[in-house]
Structure formats: C-alpha cells, structure tokens
C-alpha cells in the first residue's frame, strides 16, 4: 500500500521542476531565434592565405581541429561549408603554405581536420580558422589551447548572411 504524501518540500520540488521545464521550453526556442553571429577574434586573420585546398589531412597529422558551423538566428547546422585552418605546427610556420588546409562541414554542420601538432607561437599555443566563402559574412577565429600538450582544439562558427 502506497500513500502519496504531499508535503511542502515535495510540492516545492514538483513545482520547481514544472517551472524549470516550462521556462526551458519557453526560453530555448527564444534563445535559438536570437542566436548571435560569431564575431571575428582579434588577430584571427593573421597569416591567412586565401583559398587553401581542401585536404584529407594537413601534413602528417596527429592533432585534431574540430568544430561546428551554424546559422545565426535559428542555429540550424550548415552543411558543406568550407572552413580553412592554419597554425604554427611541428611541420611549419603559420605563414607557410604547408601549414594551411581546408575542410567541409558534414550534414550536422560539424567539421574535423587532422593536422600536425600545434606549438606555441608568439607566446600562446593557438590555431586559426576562417570561414571566407562569400555566402555568409567572413569570420576569422583564433582559439587558444589550455596547454601546449593538448592534441585537439575546437572552434565554433555562427554565421550570418553576407
């Protein structure tokens, strides 16, 4: 035999849960509606070479650069978007052509490109990514690794129509 005891605590928890569910249901689409475009980061375009070739891997690989590309406003994933990636790695300096490569996003708007290990340059271990294909406004990102020992780095784009 089970009896349902409604005391003040259970009422508060249940009420809170309903409120939270309701609020998130209301807030999430609202937030997605207003998904702000990613701004270019300062220094992001440094040593950019326009039109890097789409490659399976930059150099010998060993390090993974990944991220997503979404549309500003509704946050819809953007497939087939070209993302260019470059960095100072164990196989070349930032401005050297072999340090550059590009990849396309999949149907979920995700991209992933293997590249050589990024090493600190100008005092910070960092990578560079660019969306510069014309359909949306150009964005340059410059994410910094928490430690030079890390073997992956992420960067996310929210693009707005050009």
């Amino acid at each position, binding site marked *: 035999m089970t009896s349902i005891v409604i005391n003040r605590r259970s009422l508060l928890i249940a009420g809170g849960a309903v409120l939270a569910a309701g609020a998130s249901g209301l807030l999430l689409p609202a937030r997605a509606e207003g998904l702000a475009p990613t701004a270019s980061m*300062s220094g992001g*375009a440094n040593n950019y070479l326009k039109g890097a070739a789409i490659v399976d891997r930059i150099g010998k690989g060993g390090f993974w650069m990944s991220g997503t590309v979404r549309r500003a406003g509704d946050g819809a994933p953007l497939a087939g978007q070209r993302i260019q990636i470059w960095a100072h790695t*164990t196989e070349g300096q930032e401005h050297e052509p072999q340090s550059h490569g590009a990849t396309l996003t999949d149907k979920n708007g995700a991209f992933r490109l293997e590249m050589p290990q990024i090493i600190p340059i*100008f005092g910070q271990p960092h990578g560079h990514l660019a969306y510069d294909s014309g359909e949306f406004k150009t964005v340059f990102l410059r994410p910094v690794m928490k430690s030079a020992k890390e073997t992956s780095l992420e960067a996310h784009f929210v693009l707005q129509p050009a």
Partner: protein
Amino acid sequence: MKSARVILIWAAFAAAICVPIAAATMSPQLEWRGPVYILAGFAGMIALGVMLVQPLLIGGYLPGLPARIGRRIHHWTGGALVVAVVIHVAGLWITSPPDMIDALTYTSPTPFSPFGVTAMWAIFAVALLATFRRRLRLRTWRIAHTLLAIVIVAGSVVHAILIEGTMETFTKAALCALVLASTIKVMTELRVWRKRTALRGETIARQ
C-alpha cells in the same frame, strides 16, 4: 673570507642571468622555430638579464664595482638594453609581421603584448631623456628615470611571466623575482624622491 663572499656574489649574479638563458637553449620549442625567431626570443631574455644588471650597478651592490663606476657602466648597459629590445621587436616583426603590428598597435589578442610594448616605449623614453640629461635638473631627471624604470621593470616582468615560450618556467620566475627585488632595493635605498639625497648624489652624477 672576504674573497669567498665576493666570488659567491659574482657567481650568484652570473648564474641568475646565465642559468635561465642556458635553460632556454634546451627548449624543445627551438626545433620548430626559424633562426630569426630564435634570435628575437634570446634578445628578449638578454634584455631581461640587463634589467637585473642595471639596479645592481646603480646601487653598487656588485663587489669591486662601487656606484661611482657602476653608474658609468649603467649608461652603456642601458644602451645595450635599447639594442636588445630593437632586435627583439625587429626579429618578431620579420617572423610574423601581422602579429607584431597587432602588438605595437595595442590590438593583440595576447595579454602579455601591451605590457611588453609599454615597457619598450618606456625604455626608449629613458634613452631619449638620458641623451638630454645635462639639460635637465638633476631631480627632474632622477624622478623621471625612476618612474619610467618602474614601468619598464613591472611591464617586462608581467610580459615575460605571461609568455609561453622557450624560457623554462622556474628559472624565468627566479630571474623576474631578482629583477623586481633589486629594483625595489635600489629605489628604496637611494630615495630619489628626496631632495637632500638628490643633491648629495649630484656631485657623483655630474662627473
């Protein structure tokens, strides 16, 4: 006994500057850097080393080098500091022009850049003031130099500590701590802001 102390002080002084630079030559980062970038990095370290020399010379803390002689050497090492900073900046400019332009225009994403660039301008300002020193009132010159030296030392130490580069963390921190400590020691002992001390020092400084 006295000579042992002299040797010990000089050995500690040499080690304070040479050990961090020697440690940096072991850095694995060097393998992936070009010669100009490596030169620029070491010029920066030498500049930091000179910043330890400067207050020690002025304070007369090195045995066999009283402040009277130390002050003369201080002028030359000050000139060397300007040269080292110019090589540091020029080398980094050649390595990556856009990154150096960002730094010089205070638009760099790296937090240490504005500290280094501010220290650089303060070093140039001291060098410029030093060339016109005889036209300045002694007290004006000493206060101006002291204030700029505070900017130089504080800026350079923060700059060096925040950089993830070829310097080994512990030896870099130790050198920075010694630069700070010797600067604070010489400034508090000389009391440049005091009129009386300034006048007493005048006969020496004008030589």
